[in-house]
């Protein structure tokens, strides 16, 4: 399915560059979950993530004519990262929120699988909340790289393209981000799932 889409992606991009909204919406359909999840992890708030995701796709639609090849995924994630950055800056400016507060209200982790038991759902929800707290503990740059690499599974090269940084910078941020998150988790070891708790 993914390969089929990859083959069609270039055609969708070309048609989008000619102003075809329907073709662009095919790309939206394919990448919206990735973008929304990045925004959700970066911002820690479902409403803000929704707005950031919508901003991302509008900005992308506006700028798709300037897309000159390469990884469309990295390109759209770069726009999403900028949209998240703008949202965070606006929130800071308004002084209406802190990331800690945002996390408390994040209405995410909606049951995605009907077969999931209530216990598993509760555990998954708790884990997600815990990890969001840990991510909020990182700097914005570190958080972005850690999310892209460890949660969304992008390669270092794709991250480098998405963040407009060198490979060395990506590795450095990833190292520091992981170490910092590790410190956060170890301080709250009792909240970790059992299989992780006994390791250390």
């Amino acid at each position, binding site marked *: 399915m993914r390969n089929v889409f990859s083959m069609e992606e270039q055609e969708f991009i070309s048609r989008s560059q000619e*102003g075809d*909204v329907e073709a*662009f*919406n095919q790309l*939206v*359909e394919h990448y*919206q*979950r990735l973008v*929304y*999840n990045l925004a*959700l*992890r970066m911002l820690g*708030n*479902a*409403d*803000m993530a*929704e*707005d950031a995701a*919508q*901003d*991302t*796709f*509008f*900005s992308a*639609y*506006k700028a798709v004519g300037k897309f000159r090849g390469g990884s469309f995924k990295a390109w759209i994630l770069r726009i999403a990262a900028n949209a998240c950055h703008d*949202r965070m800056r*606006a*929130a800071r400016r*308004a002084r*209406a*929120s*802190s990331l800690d*507060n*945002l996390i408390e209200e994040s209405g*995410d*982790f*909606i049951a*995605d699988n009907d077969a999931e038991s209530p216990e598993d759902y509760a555990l*998954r929800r708790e*884990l*997600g909340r815990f*990890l969001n707290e840990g991510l909020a503990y990182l700097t914005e740059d570190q958080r972005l790289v*850690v999310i892209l*690499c*460890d*949660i969304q599974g992008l390669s*270092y090269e794709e991250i480098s393209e998405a963040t407009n940084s060198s490979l060395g910078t990506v*590795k450095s941020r*990833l*190292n520091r981000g*992981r*170490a910092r*998150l*590790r410190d956060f*988790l*170890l301080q709250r070891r009792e909240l970790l799932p059992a299989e*992780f708790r006994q*390791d*250390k």
Partner: protein
Amino acid sequence: MFSGIRKTRCRKVWGMISDYIDDLLGAEERNEVERHLETCSACSKELESLRMTVQLLRRTPSVPVPRSFAIREVEAGREEVSGQHGSGWLRPVPAFAVGRVSAVWGGVCDPQRLRWLRPAAAFATAALVLLLMLDFLQVVPQQGGIDTREVFNESTAQVVSTPAPEVEWDTFEAGGDELAEVPPVPAPPSQAAEDEGKAPAADVYFDELTGGNDYGGGKEIATDTAGGWPMRQIEIAIGAVASILIAVTVVTWMRRNRLSRV
């Protein structure tokens, strides 16, 4: 000495630790890291805790999107969307209304771009308050020490029936726009008749003031023309502008606030 060498090796390994975890090292570098890990328990523990962190992150669930982010035709021409897609009371604005507003304002009303609104609203409000204060203190319509509005707030009949005070006729120049120099109260017709040749009858005086036009009320005359400025209209205009600016500012602020709602 040995601890210094060990620290140097630890640092070198730490530079490669993420690549090692992600299995991106070449065979030679990988062997070097593993040899060091066999002899350095501190680095081994660090590696294990980092691995645990990464495994935990990889278990982070992917959240389904709450709705589609597809671009609608009506929005495709817009520069940017900010605000109407989130939850909140402004959310259910119909798409066609958004499109119309955007078409008219060309994005000017976008909350992100309305930084000028707050100072403008503050300025308009300050102007309105100042004007009302001046009005209240009767500074604006009062020139030459006489409040003409006070005189003409009374009905014409009352003016006529008012006993004539002592009038400084030297300063009386009826007609023209200089109502400020009108004496406080015109002489009543009866007294004027008695004092023939000194003071005009009130009706005549009123006609001279108004140029013979029937304004239907003294207040309008005084406030509209006092000092040569249509003060009432200015007040109304500034009030209307201030009200609109304040309303738009409040709406914009609420939308912005919603964006950063916690």
